[in-house]
C-alpha cells in the first residue's frame, strides 16, 4: 500500500514538472513568466521554512535573515566584482558559507529557548541584521539599496524561468530526501517530544542545529535567486514581512509536507496577482487587501490542515467510501 501511494505521488510530481516545463512554450505573457519564477523562488524559501516549522516544530520570526544574507551576498558579488556567471556561482558558494555560519551560531545560541521565546529571539536577530544593513551603508547603500547587473545567461526571462524551476525541483528533491532520511525522522520526533527523543539517545541540540542549518542554507540560496530576479536589493529583504510570507505560505500549503510550501507559494502569489488585476477592473477590488486577508481567514475555516491536508482528507474519504 505504501509503495502504491509513493508511485502515485511520483506520477503526479512528474506531471506537474512536465506542465511547468511546457509552460513558457504555451504562455506568451512575460508577466506570467516572472510570476511563476517568483513562485518557484518563494517556494524554496517556504520549503526551507517548513524544515523548521513543519518538521522540527520550531517557529522562527527571523527566517528572513538568511534570505537577506543570500540576496545581499549575491548582489554585492555581482555589483563589486563583475557580473559573470562565475561571479554568481562563487557568490552562491559564499552564501552557503555565510548562511551556514550564521545558522550554526544561531542554532547554538538560541535553540535552547522554548517556542515563543525562540521565535522572538530570532525576530531580534533578524532585526539586528536589518539595522546592520541599514547602517553599513558603504556596502549596502542603506534602505535605498542598489542595482546591479546579472550574468547574461540569466537575463533572459525564459532562461531564468528554467533556472528557477530547476532550482526549485532540485531543492524539493534534496529537502524531501533530507526529511525522509533517518535524520529527518528524528527531527519529527523532536517536534513531537524533545525530552523523549533525547532519552532515545539522540542529541537534540545537534539535530536542531542541523535543521537550522539546512533551513538557513536553503533560505540563503532562495535569497540569492530572489536578488537575481530583481537585479536590485535593499533592506526590505530582511523585513519581518518576508518571514511572515514564508510562514503563511507554509501554513496555507500544509506544514510538514514540503510540497505544501510549493502550493502555498503558488496560491498566495497567484491570488495576490489575481486580486491586483481585479483592482483595475472593478472599484470594489481597489481595497483588494481586504479580500486577500479574508482568504487567509477563510482558508483556516475550510482547510485548517492546509491544502495538502485537505487533499489527504479527501483521499482518505475517497478510499473509504
Amino acid at each position, binding site marked *: 500500500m505504501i509503495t502504491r501511494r509513493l508511485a502515485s505521488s511520483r506520477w503526479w510530481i512528474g506531471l506537474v514538472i512536465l506542465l511547468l516545463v511546457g509552460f513558457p512554450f504555451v504562455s506568451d*505573457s512575460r*508577466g506570467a513568466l*516572472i510570476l511563476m519564477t*517568483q513562485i518557484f523562488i518563494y517556494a524554496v524559501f517556504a520549503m526551507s521554512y517548513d524544515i523548521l516549522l513543519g518538521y522540527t516544530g520550531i517557529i522562527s520570526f527571523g527566517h528572513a535573515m538568511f534570505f537577506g544574507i543570500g540576496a545581499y551576498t549575491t548582489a554585492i558579488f555581482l555589483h563589486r566584482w563583475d557580473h559573470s556567471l562565475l561571479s554568481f556561482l562563487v557568490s552562491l558558494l559564499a552564501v552557503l558559507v555565510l548562511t551556514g555560519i550564521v545558522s550554526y551560531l544561531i542554532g547554538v545560541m538560541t535553540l535552547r529557548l522554548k517556542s515563543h521565546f525562540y521565535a522572538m529571539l530570532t525576530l531580534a536577530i533578524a532585526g539586528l541584521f536589518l539595522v546592520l544593513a541599514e547602517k553599513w551603508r558603504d556596502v549596502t547603500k542603506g534602505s*535605498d539599496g542598489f542595482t546591479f547587473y546579472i550574468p*547574461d545567461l540569466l*537575463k*533572459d526571462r*525564459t532562461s531564468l524561468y528554467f533556472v528557477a524551476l530547476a532550482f526549485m525541483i532540485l531543492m524539493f528533491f534534496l529537502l524531501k530526501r533530507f526529511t525522509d532520511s533517518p535524520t529527518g525522522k528524528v527531527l519529527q520526533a523532536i517536534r513531537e517530544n524533545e525530552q523523549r527523543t533525547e532519552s532515545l539517545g539522540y542529541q537534540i541540540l545537534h539535530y536542531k542545529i542541523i535543521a537550522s542549518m539546512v533551513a538557513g542554507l536553503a533560505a540563503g540560496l532562495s535569497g540569492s535567486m530572489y536578488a537575481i530576479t*530583481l537585479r536590485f536589493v535593499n533592506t526590505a529583504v530582511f523585513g519581518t514581512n518576508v518571514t511572515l510570507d514564508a510562514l503563511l505560505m507554509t501554513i496555507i500549503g500544509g506544514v510538514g509536507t514540503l510540497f505544501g510550501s510549493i502550493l502555498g507559494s503558488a496560491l498566495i502569489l497567484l491570488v495576490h496577482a489575481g486580486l491586483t488585476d481585479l483592482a483595475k477592473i472593478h472599484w470594489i477590488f481597489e481595497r483588494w487587501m481586504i479580500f486577500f486577508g479574508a482568504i487567509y481567514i477563510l482558508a483556516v475555516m475550510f482547510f485548517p490542515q492546509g491544502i495538502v491536508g485537505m487533499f489527504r482528507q479527501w483521499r482518505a474519504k475517497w478510499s473509504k467510501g
Partner: protein
Amino acid sequence: SQQPAAQPSQPGSGQGAPSSQGESKQPIKIGVLASLTGALEDYGKQTTRGFELGIAYATGGTNEVAGRPIEVIIEDTETKSDVAVKKATKLIEDDQVDFLVGSSSSGDTLAVVPLAEEHKKIMVVEPAAADSITADNWNKYVFRTARNSSQDAIAGALAIAKQGTKIATLAPDYAFGRDGVAAFKEVAEKQGAQIVLEEYADQKTTDFTPNLQKIIQAKPEYLFVIWSGANTPWSQIADMKLQEQGIKVSTGTADFATLKTMRTMVGMEGFTLYYYDLPKNEVNDWLIEEHKKRHNGEAPDLFVPGGMTAAMAIVEAVKKSNGDTNADNLIPLMEGMSFDSPKGKMTFRPEDHQALQVMYAIRLEQKDGMEWPVPVLMGELSPEDTAPPVRNKR
C-alpha cells in the same frame, strides 16, 4: 493590453522599440508605476491623477501627439520592489509600453531602473527622490522630473543658512534622512553656517524627546528637520518648547495630510516643493481648476504637479521627435530639453537628466477656514540656485 504575442525579448539587441514614424496610428503607450495600496498609496494616487491631467493638458484634450493616440496603463507597485519589477516587466514586455513613469518609492524605482536600461525604454522618475537614482544607479534612460533629496536640502539650506548661523538637524535614521542631511550640510556650510548637531531618530519612534533634549542641549539657532513618513515629531517639538528656548524650527512642508499635523508649527520658516497657490502661471491655474473639477473641489496636493510634469515632459519629447518613441533617438532630444510644468519651466540637464526646477521659500501661517497652516511665499529659489551637484559617473 490588447497587444498580440510578445516576441521573445532579445536583451542586448536594439530592437526593443516597435514603433517608428512610419506606423503613426500605433498608440504611444505609457506605463505608470505607483503605490496605489500600502503606506504610500496617497502619493501614488496624486501622481496618477497628475499624470492624467498632464496628458490632457499637453495634448489639448485630444489625447494624441504627433498623430498617435496615447494610452496610459497604471500599475500598483504596493511599495514592494519585487512587485514593482514584476509590474514593470509586464508593462515593458507584455504591454510593450514606450515609456515608464514612476514610482512613489525610491526602492521601487531603483528596482525598475535596470529594466529600463535593458529594454531601452525611457523612464521618467516621479516622484521618487533618492539621489542615487540620478547618481550611482543612473543610466542614460533615466530622466527625473521629480526633485531629488539634494534639491530639497539645498532649498532648505538656502532658506535659513547664513554666515555664522548655528544649525542642528533632525532626520530619520535611514538612507533618506542621512543623504538629505549630508546634502544640506554641504550647502549650509558653503553658506557659512555651522552644523552643531546631526540628530537622527528611529522613523517609527514614539518618543522624540530624547532627540529633542539633545538638540536643546546643543543650543542651535535653527533646527532643520528632514522628515517623511506617517509618524511626525511636530507635536513633541511643541511640547518640548523649542521655540521658547530660542530654537527656530525649519523644514520642508509636504502634502496636506502632513500639513495638518503641523498646526503647532505656525510661524515656521522653511521651503516647499509645491503648494498649489504658490506658483503663478497658466499651467498651474489650469491644473487647480481642472483638478477641482475632476476631484470634487479638492485642490491638487504635493505630487499632483509632478505627475502632470512627467506627462508634459513625455508629450514634449514625442512632439520633438515627431512621434518617434525609440529611446535612443529620444535621449539626445530630451537632454537639455526645457518644458512647461505647473512650476514653470523645467530643464533636464544633460549630465544626469535631473530636471532643474523652482523651489519655494515659505512661512507657515494660519488662515481662516483652512484645516491646516498654509505655506505663504517668501521667495522663489531658482532652478539654478537649487541645482544639485552632478554625481553620476558618466
